[in-house]
């Protein structure tokens, strides 16, 4: 990775110098390169625009439609055809995998489908881009794009970005076309055309090189189609360049994934394997496929000399052949890639679901944050239970009489809470807060509020642990107390928290609806109030009858308040974590 970066950085000044020389020396090249630059910035705007719509249709579609290979392929195809960016779909897939929202096989299916979706770009360029005067659309799109971009509403801004993106893409194509037409007057590039397998390898390599430099197969396709439309390259070489573009896009993805997590690497390699298989088939059967394109072209009304449309058809057809060849093996790929890139052993002190790729996608970031908060909650139940000298497996979800479990659990669990906090809570807490703060930047107000409530819940969990530490000392001492009143009172306190933990455990695993869950939480809160009032009465009785010393009585009062505080905080957290519907959540607010 470091070597790749070093090569990249050392070549960059050379690339800039070469580019400057080319722009200075050739006016024609300047127009074509400007067209590419405008096209690329258009793609960036379009991708940003669709990202602003995260939290809605696109993620919902991608999440729910990947349970079988066919649906995953179709979803990848449709979503990429709409957003015109397979890299955006890749980012979403990697973040979904990070948040464990879909399986690797599902993500591979989507990525393969996305490859077919990118072929719609060639159709758009070959039809809209070349058959009509495209600048007539580009300029109004840019104007509306700018107006909407300055609106305060995020959705309007999203539309603005998409309009700007489309406008720039159209404008870029128009510049490329004009550039090639002007260039043709002075230099006929088609004289460099090559035939045979050697020629094929040269042009495939050029296609790869162009895509690696441009970092976008769509831009390369635009370049190829406009060059073909102006007869600067011959049809067969255009096909070879298109195959090269397909391979080039995966090289870019593989290089990008070197710094990514295991999921990113798995997906990039799946993409690479797909494209290598597809390209190999296309090279091996180049002439039969070209012949097939002509046959289908005649059937669907593409003229014999309409090479740009034939190229678009070839691009679709060879990707379709790739899909049909690789799709049946997605599950095998899943197994192979999961073994090849094994995930690191799960360290409970570190975040499991917070994927950097997802931080810019609000809906996924919210799901990831919620899962991580549940992870933090689970860690906290361990430390809180142990601070009460209780093991979770003895009472959580066991349906046993908790008071009896408490009475029989007299063995002190000597947990160093400070050490536990530093090892298993602090880092995770920090990871969540940092991620939440970064994620908020890309969110609308409503989502920001949700993240804010997640942060509060996080703080509540951590504070509960700190309070449990205060409680632990007196509870441990009470277990060996010879005063049965003291031991009895502390057992009541242990029982109160254990009942809350058990109640939350039961409701989160019950699969009941939100109303039932909230009602259960409310009933637990009522029980808590009742416990509190009974405890105060008992305490009065103990003091009045001098069953305990005054200093012990005040400790009991303080510890009772601690128990109430921990329970209340955990119940508030559970409202946020296990009640999905925002309106119903609000009913539980005091």
């Amino acid at each position, binding site marked *: 990775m470091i070597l790749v970066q070093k090569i990249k950085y050392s070549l960059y000044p050379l690339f800039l110098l070469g580019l400057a020389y080319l722009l200075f020396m050739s006016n024609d090249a300047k127009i074509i390169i400007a067209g590419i630059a405008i096209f690329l910035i258009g793609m960036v705007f379009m991708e940003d625009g669709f990202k602003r719509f995260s939290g809605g249709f696109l993620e919902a579609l991608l999440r729910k439609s990947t349970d079988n290979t066919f649906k995953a392929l179709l979803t990848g195809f449709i979503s990429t055809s709409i957003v015109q960016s397979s890299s955006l779909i890749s980012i979403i897939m990697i973040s979904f995998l990070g948040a464990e929202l879909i399986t690797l096989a599902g993500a591979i299916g989507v990525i393969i489908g996305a490859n077919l979706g990118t072929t719609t770009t060639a159709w758009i360029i070959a039809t809209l881009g070349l058959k009509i005067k495209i600048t007539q659309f580009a300029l109004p799109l840019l104007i509306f794009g700018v107006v909407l971009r300055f609106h305060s509403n995020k959705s309007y801004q999203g539309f603005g970005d998409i309009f700007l993106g489309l406008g720039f893409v159209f404008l870029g194509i128009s510049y490329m076309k004009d550039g090639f037409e002007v260039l043709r007057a002075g230099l006929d590039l088609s004289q460099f055309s090559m035939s045979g397998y050697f020629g094929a390898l040269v042009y495939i390599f050029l296609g790869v090189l162009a895509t690696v430099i441009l970092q976008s197969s769509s831009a390369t396709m635009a370049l190829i189609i406009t060059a073909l439309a102006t007869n600067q390259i011959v049809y067969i070489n255009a096909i070879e360049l298109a195959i090269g573009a397909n391979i080039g896009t995966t090289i870019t993805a593989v290089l990008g994934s070197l710094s990514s997590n295991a999921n990113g690497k798995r997906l990039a390699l799946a993409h690479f394997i797909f494209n290598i298989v597809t390209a190999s088939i296309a090279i091996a059967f180049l002439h039969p496929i070209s012949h097939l394109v002509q046959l289908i072209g005649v059937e669907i009304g593409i003229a014999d000399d309409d090479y740009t449309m034939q190229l678009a058809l070839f691009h679709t057809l060879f990707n379709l052949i790739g899909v049909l060849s690789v799709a049946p093996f997605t599950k095998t790929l899943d197994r192979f890639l999961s073994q090849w890139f094994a995930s690191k052993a799960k360290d409970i002190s570190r975040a499991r679901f917070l994927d950097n790729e997802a931080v810019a996608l609000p809906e996924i970031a919210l799901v990831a944050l919620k899962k991580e908060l549940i992870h933090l909650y689970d860690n906290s139940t361990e430390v809180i239970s142990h601070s009460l000298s209780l093991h979770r497996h003895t009472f959580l979800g066991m349906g046993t009489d908790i008071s009896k479990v408490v009475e029989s659990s007299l063995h002190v669990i000597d947990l160093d809470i400070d050490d536990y906090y530093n090892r298993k809570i602090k880092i995770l807490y920090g990871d969540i807060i940092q991620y939440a703060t970064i994620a908020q930047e890309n969110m609308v107000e409503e989502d920001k509020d949700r993240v804010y409530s997640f942060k509060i819940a996080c703080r509540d969990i951590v504070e509960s642990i700190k309070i449990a530490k205060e409680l632990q000392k007196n509870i441990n001492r009470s277990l060996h107390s010879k005063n049965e009143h003291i031991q009895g009172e502390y057992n009541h306190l242990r029982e109160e928290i254990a009942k809350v933990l058990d109640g939350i455990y039961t409701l989160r695993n019950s699969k009941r609806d939100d109303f039932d869950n909230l009602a259960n939480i409310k*009933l637990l809160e009522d029980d808590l109030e009742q416990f509190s009032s009974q405890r105060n009465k008992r305490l009065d009785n103990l003091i009045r009858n001098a069953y305990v010393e005054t200093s012990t009585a005040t400790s009991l009062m303080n510890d009772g308040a601690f128990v109430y505080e921990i329970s209340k905080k955990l119940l508030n957290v559970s409202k946020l974590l296990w009640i999905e519907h925002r309106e119903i959540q609000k009913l539980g607010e005091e």
Partner: protein
Amino acid sequence: MKFSKLFQEVESFFENDQQNEDDLKKEELQKALEKKIESIRKEMKDKISDARHLKLKKRLEVLSEFKKKL
């Protein structure tokens, strides 16, 4: 029509649309809650133990409270 006015029109269209959607969701929630309350009332009329009756009574109180708030 001035451009800013056109924007306001479009914005209020989207906001009204959102408001209608929220109202519909609320109505659905009210119906679901009402159904739940009814089924508890029905169960309370059946022959059940005192402990179960008390449990249902508490649950009914909580859900009725939600209904008032919704």
